[in-house]
């Protein structure tokens, strides 16, 4: 067993940090305050080799593992969870097309998604179906060589900004398929742009499909593969969300430690009060446990071992730890912590979303217990 990072991994961490220091740190407070999505960041992330980290070299990817990808997300989230979330969502179509798409689809979409010229989105959730994804109602009816899509997708990250949407539809009573829908498809439009508790840079929109017609050739894999495609994407997506959680947690912990060292009350630094010391000790321990659970899930994935249970455990633990760590960071900073200027309140608002996306904490527990019931 070896817990050390190799040279490539160290390099990935360093270069992502440098990128984020230069491109994200200077603009993030302004973007958050204005809920402004800076699209031009994506080609820059593409340039830096971040978006296609795990994709095949033939399409411009770097052929790294989920482990390295997880390190990238953790570093990005340290500077901006919102951009990290949008980034991880544009990576979902890449992963899906790479794994299940036809050669033609790969050539058509992967290179531009990897450079960040195109942005991707993933449409599964609907107003009436969240955790129970299988009950989705959006329909695609086949007529000739085309599918006609009708329905509503809800809470779509990158909705409205994305160019390539992977849309889960019902092609038959019992059949869910994954279709690629391009931005300019007539009949697809952007509905309401949601206002959220946090993650305000990252757009969340309703996507409306009204007789939206796409070629049947846009089906990913075979018809009826859709649910498997979605679930596979979500399994690795859970490692992504866990990594984002760990990045936020580290940022919150660093801010709390720095403040507690500096702030004096009752004639001493507050970091020397046991109430604060123990809070920080618990935060650091929670983060460390979360991080290694996440890296273990990534290790299993990269070694072609079953990782679904571990990915759920990593997501459950990391996001719940992140919620506690960020809430406690606000507490350590006291009145300052509650004010926007000191940023930790943003971490807390962001943390809450991670307990909801890519399967709520409750769904992770279902996945884990389902695995426990197997022999």
């Amino acid at each position, binding site marked *: 067993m070896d817990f050390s990072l190799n040279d490539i991994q160290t390099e990935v961490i360093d270069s992502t940090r440098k990128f984020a220091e230069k491109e994200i740190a200077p603009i993030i407070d302004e973007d958050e305050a204005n809920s402004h999505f800076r699209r031009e960041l994506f080609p820059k992330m593409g340039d830096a080799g971040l978006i296609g980290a795990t994709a095949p070299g033939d399409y411009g990817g770097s052929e790294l593992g989920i482990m390295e990808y997880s390190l990238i997300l953790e570093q990005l989230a340290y500077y901006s969870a919102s951009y990290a979330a949008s980034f991880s969502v544009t990576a979902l179509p890449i992963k899906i097309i790479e794994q299940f798409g036809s050669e033609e689809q790969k050539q058509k979409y992967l290179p531009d998604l990897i450079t960040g010229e195109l942005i991707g989105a993933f449409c599964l959730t609907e107003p009436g179906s*969240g955790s129970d994804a299988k009950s989705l109602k959006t329909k695609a009816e086949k007529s000739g060589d085309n599918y006609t899509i009708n329905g509503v997708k809800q809470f779509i990250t990158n909705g409205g900004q994305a160019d390539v949407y992977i849309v889960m539809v019902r092609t038959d009573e019992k059949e869910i398929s994954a279709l690629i829908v391009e931005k300019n498809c007539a009949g697809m439009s952007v509905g309401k742009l949601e206002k959220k*508790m946090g993650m305000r840079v990252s757009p969340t929109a309703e996507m409306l499909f009204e007789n939206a017609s796409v070629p049947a050739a846009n089906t990913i894999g075979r018809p009826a593969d859709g649910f498997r495609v979605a679930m596979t994407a979500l399994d690795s997506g859970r490692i992504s969300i866990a990594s984002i959680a760990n990045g936020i947690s580290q940022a919150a912990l660093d801010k709390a430690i720095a403040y507690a060292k500096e702030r004096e009350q*009752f*004639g001493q630094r507050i970091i020397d009060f046991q109430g604060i010391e123990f809070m920080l000790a618990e935060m650091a321990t929670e983060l460390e446990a979360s991080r290694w659970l996440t890296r273990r899930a990534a290790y299993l994935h990269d070694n072609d071992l079953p990782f679904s249970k571990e990915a759920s455990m990593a997501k459950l633990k990391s996001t719940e730890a992140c919620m506690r760590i960020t809430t406690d960071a606000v*507490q350590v900073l*006291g009145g300052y912590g509650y004010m926007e200027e000191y940023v930790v309140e943003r971490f807390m608002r962001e943390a809450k979303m991670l307990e*909801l*996306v890519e399967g709520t904490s409750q769904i992770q527990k279902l996945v884990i217990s389902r695995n426990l019931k197997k022999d």
Partner: protein
Amino acid sequence: MWFFSEEERMLQDSMQNFAQDQILPLAEQADETETLPEGHFSKMAEMGLLGITVPEEFGGAGMGCVEATIVHEELGAVCASTALTYLAHTILFVHNLATNGSKEQKEKYLPDVISGKSIGGLGITEPGSGSDSLAMATMATRDGNDYLLSGTKTYITNAPNGQIFYVYARTGDGKKDVSTFLVENSFEGFSHGKKIRKMGMRGSPTGQLIMDQCRVPKANRVGKEGYSATHMMRNLDIERITIAGISVGIARGALAVAQRYVQEREAFGQTLSKFQMIQKMYADGDAELHAAKSLVYEAAKRWDIAKSEGRPLGKKGALWAARAKLIAATMATKVSLDCVQMLGGYGYDREFPVERMARDAKLNEIGAGTNEIMRLIIAREELN
């Protein structure tokens, strides 16, 4: 609560109607625009709420801590921002003045704050002194018949929109050499400072009181010079009990939304309310809410009984207030975050009120004494 009197029940009923009809419809707007809806103070004045604890001879309602807590709970259940601004005005300014001010000061200032014509607030916290409040640096020096106050008070509720403030300042070198002054915003040398953007309680304006050689007449000193440290601490009891009432209200409001949602929303062929996981989250929240509520009203009742018997609670008052605030504030953060979780994606959506309630709830673990200070008070009373 089971022990509420007939009058307290009537107040609860009318507050519920008032909150539903007048406050709830503007709660989302207050949060989004970060401003207290216009007209809230005059409506509360019409309801007779602004001088709730003030004796009738001074134009108040002559009620006690239980009634004040009921009002805070009911406002908190629909719009915690309104409840917090109400607290800063009614408890921190009006109640403190009515309790500690001279007859002349009460006659001069109470009518306008009770009618809502002017809005009040209280200044303790400074950039360098939060939990360690007696380390405040704002100085008041005598200048003939006046005092000159210099210093900055920060994180002051109603600072941007208030006209009259109950300000603590140092009048000597000893740690406890603290005095109180009634500072009008029109006084020479006073400025409001900038409005501060917060995580939650956004409808309740927060800002700074900046005093630069601010000239305050000696007649505006409350009590004797250098004798404010004790009453500053004692005044915090009713503040902590009533803010704990806001926490109870927030959790109750959030649970009510979750209760409706989980009974309507279906997943996997049944309503969410049929899943054990949701039942646990809801049941724990419900039980914790009621436990906190019982404790908060017990503290309020003890405060009232002591007052009616003319024997101040002293350190016991601080202890009960600390217990109530610690339990209620931590409960409300946990329960409101769980309510976001029960609503899933909708919970995170600002169109549903639970995310606002979760953001609001966190303030009460910090304001009016942090959780850590509540634990310190309990430990000081029970362990040493």
